[in-house]
C-alpha cells in the first residue's frame, strides 16, 4: 500500500515537468509486473485440470500437505514462544553487544537456507557439537525426523517474526507502560496486559510471515531432515521430487501451495487494512 502511494507521488512531478508520459518508469514497471505474474499464469495454463481432483486426493499429496501445515504451525508457535521475548530484549533493553545480537538474529535471513541446514547438521547431528552428547545421553538423534523439519523451519523463519515484533515494540508508545506501572502493574503484567495487546498487529503480521516462510522452507529442511515421505517430506520437497518423475503432480502440488499462500496473503491484507 505504502509503496503504491509513494510511486504515485513520484509519478506526478515528472508528468508536470515534462508534460509527457513517463515511459522510462512505466515500461520497466510493467515488465517487472509481468515477470512476477507470468510464472503463475504458466502454472495455471499447464495445470492438468481434468485430473486435478483425483491427484489432489492422492495420499502422497495429502500427507505432504498435512505435514507441511502441521510443521509450519508448530514452527510458528515455537518462534512465537522464543521470538517475542527475543524481540522484547532487543527492543527494550540495553546490554553490551545488543547490536551484535541483533545482527546475528538476522543472519538466517540472508544466508542460503542450505547453508543453514549444513550448520544445523554440524551442531545437532548425531556427531554434531551438541548432538553427540544428546545422542550419548539419551540415544536420541534429531536429524531426519519430523522434529528436525520443525527445527529447520524455526531456524529459517523465526528472524522474520523477531524483526516484525521488534519493529512493533519500537513503534509502540512506551508511556502506556509507564501509566500501567503507576497503577501498580508489575513488569510481567505490563507486558501481558499492555504491551502485547498494543503490538498485537505486529505480532500477527510477524507470525503470518514466519508461517509462510516455514511453509515454503526447502534448503535447510532437505539438508537437515532429509526427504522421507510422511515423515519429513513437506510440500516443497514433494514438489521437487515430483518434478523429476511426473511434472503434472508437481504442478498440482505447486497449485496447492499457491492457493494456501494466496489465502494467507488475503487474510493478512484484511488484517492490515482493519488494523489501526
Amino acid at each position, binding site marked *: 500500500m505504502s509503496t503504491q502511494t509513494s510511486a504515485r507521488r513520484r509519478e506526478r512531478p515528472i508528468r508536470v515537468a515534462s508534460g509527457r508520459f513517463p515511459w522510462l518508469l512505466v515500461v520497466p514497471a510493467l515488465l517487472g509486473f509481468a515477470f512476477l505474474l507470468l510464472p503463475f499464469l504458466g502454472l495455471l495454463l499447464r495445470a492438468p485440470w481434468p485430473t486435478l481432483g483425483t491427484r489432489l486426493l492422492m495420499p502422497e499429496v495429502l500427507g505432504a500437505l498435512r505435514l507441511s501445515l502441521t510443521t509450519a504451525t508448530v514452527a510458528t508457535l515455537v518462534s512465537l514462544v522464543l521470538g517475542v521475548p527475543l524481540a522484547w530484549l532487543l527492543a527494550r533493553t540495553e546490554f553490551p553487544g545488543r547490536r551484535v545480537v541483533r545482527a546475528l538474529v538476522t543472519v538466517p535471513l540472508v544466508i542460503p537456507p542450505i547453508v543453514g541446514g549444513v550448520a544445523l547438521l554440524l551442531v545437532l547431528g548425531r556427531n554434531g557439537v551438541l548432538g553427540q552428547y544428546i545422542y550419548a545421553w539419551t540415544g536420541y538423534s534429531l536429524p531426519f525426523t519430523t522434529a528436525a523439519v520443525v527445527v529447520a523451519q524455526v531456524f529459517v523463519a523465526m528472524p522474520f517474526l523477531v524483526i516484525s515484533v521488534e519493529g512493533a515494540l519500537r513503534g509502540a508508545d512506551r508511556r502506556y507502560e509507564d501509566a500501567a*506501572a503507576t497503577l501498580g502493574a508489575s513488569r510481567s503484567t505490563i507486558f501481558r496486559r499492555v504491551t502485547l495487546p498494543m503490538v498485537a498487529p505486529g505480532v500477527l503480521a510477524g507470525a503470518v510471515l514466519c508461517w509462510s516462510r516455514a511453509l515454503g522452507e526447502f534448503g535447510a529442511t532437505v539438508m537437515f531432515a532429509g526427504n522421507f515421505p510422511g515423515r519429513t517430506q513437506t510440500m516443497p520437497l514433494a514438489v521437487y521430487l515430483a518434478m523429476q518423475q511426473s511434472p503434472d503432480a508437481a504442478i498440482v502440488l505447486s497449485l496447492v501451495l499457491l492457493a494456501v499462500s494466496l489465502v494467507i496473503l488475503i487474510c493478512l491484507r484484511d488484517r492490515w487494512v482493519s488494523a489501526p
Partner: protein
Amino acid sequence: MTPTHPALDARLVVRRPSFALDVHLRVAPGEVLALLGPNGAGKSTVLRALAGLAPMVDGHVRVDGLDLTAVPTERRPIGMVFQDYLLFDHMSALENVAFGPRCQGVPKTEARTRAARLLDRVGLADHAGARPRSLSGGQAQRVALARALATRPRLLLLDEPLAALDAHTRFSVRSHLQRHLADFGGATVIVTHDPLDAMVLADRVMVVEDGALVQQGSPVDVARRPRTGYVARLVGLNLYRGRADGTRVTVTGTSGAPVAVTVAGTHSGEVFTAFTPRSVALYRTRPDGSPRNAWRLAVDGIERFGDQVRVHLTGEVDLSADITPAGLAELALAPGDLVWASVKATEVACYPA
C-alpha cells in the same frame, strides 16, 4: 518541622546531558500544589521523578513519612493522570479504571464494583462499556482521573490535565477537577503552563524555570507579585527589577542603561516594580501634570486582546500597553511610530526582590 509528616516531602535531583533539575517540594495533606513553568522547564520531569519513572541522581521522596526513594513505580502509593491520558485502547472505560485495583490484588468483582462507583462519581456511569477512543476529550480526562484514584493513592500527580482540551471543555472539566481535588485527602501536584489552571486549582503555586524553583506562594501572591519575566508575561504584567532609593527606583533598561521609575511609597534596596498594561497611557506629545513616569518608545507590534488592543513598545524599556480600539484609531499608531507612554506612580507596585 511540623508535628505530623507532610503528605509529600521530596528533593529531586535529575541530570541529563543538556538539562539539570534540582527542586525541593513539600505538600501538606489535602493541599494542591501547582508547578507552573514554560515548556522544557522540567515540570514533567518533577512528576516522573516523583513517580519513579525518571532516575534521580540525588534526593529523596517521602510520602506520609514513608521513604519511597528506592521503591519501584508499581509499589508507590501514587495515582497519575498523564497529559494525553494514556487510556488503554484495548480495554473499556470500566476495565481501565479496574486495572489498578486488579494489579493490587483486589478480586475481579470487587475491582469492577469499585471502578463502577468511581465512574459514577465522575459522571460517566453510562460510558462504563465504552472504548477510550469513542470518548470525548473531557470524558477521557475524567476516566483517567477515576483510573488514577482507583488505586487509592496518597499522592496524586496530574501532568497538564487540561492541556489537551478545547477552551469550552476546559472550563467545565476544570471546575469538575476542582471538586474532586477538594475531596482528595492526600497530596496533589499539578503541572501546568496555564496560569488560570494554577489559580483555580491550586492552594500554592511553585514556578519552575530551567530546572529550578524561581518563585512560590499563593496563587494570588504569584499573580500580583511576579518575580520573573516569564510569570509576569503569563499574568500580563510589566515587570522590572531595580534598586530603590525613596520613591525612585533605578531599573535596568532594555539596552542595559539605567532607567528611573517613580513609585508611590518609599523603598530601599533591591526591588521589583510591576504595573498592568491597562495602567499605561499613550500620547503623541509629551504629557505633563501629576508625578508620572513617561518614556518615548517605538511601537513594536499591535494585537487584539479581549475588547482592548495591546500595543507592544520598545525603547529605553520594553512594555505593553492596553488601550481601547477608539484610542488606537485616535493615535493612528503604526509599527515603528514613536509615542509617549506614561504610568502614574500610584499604579506601580513595588516589592522587595
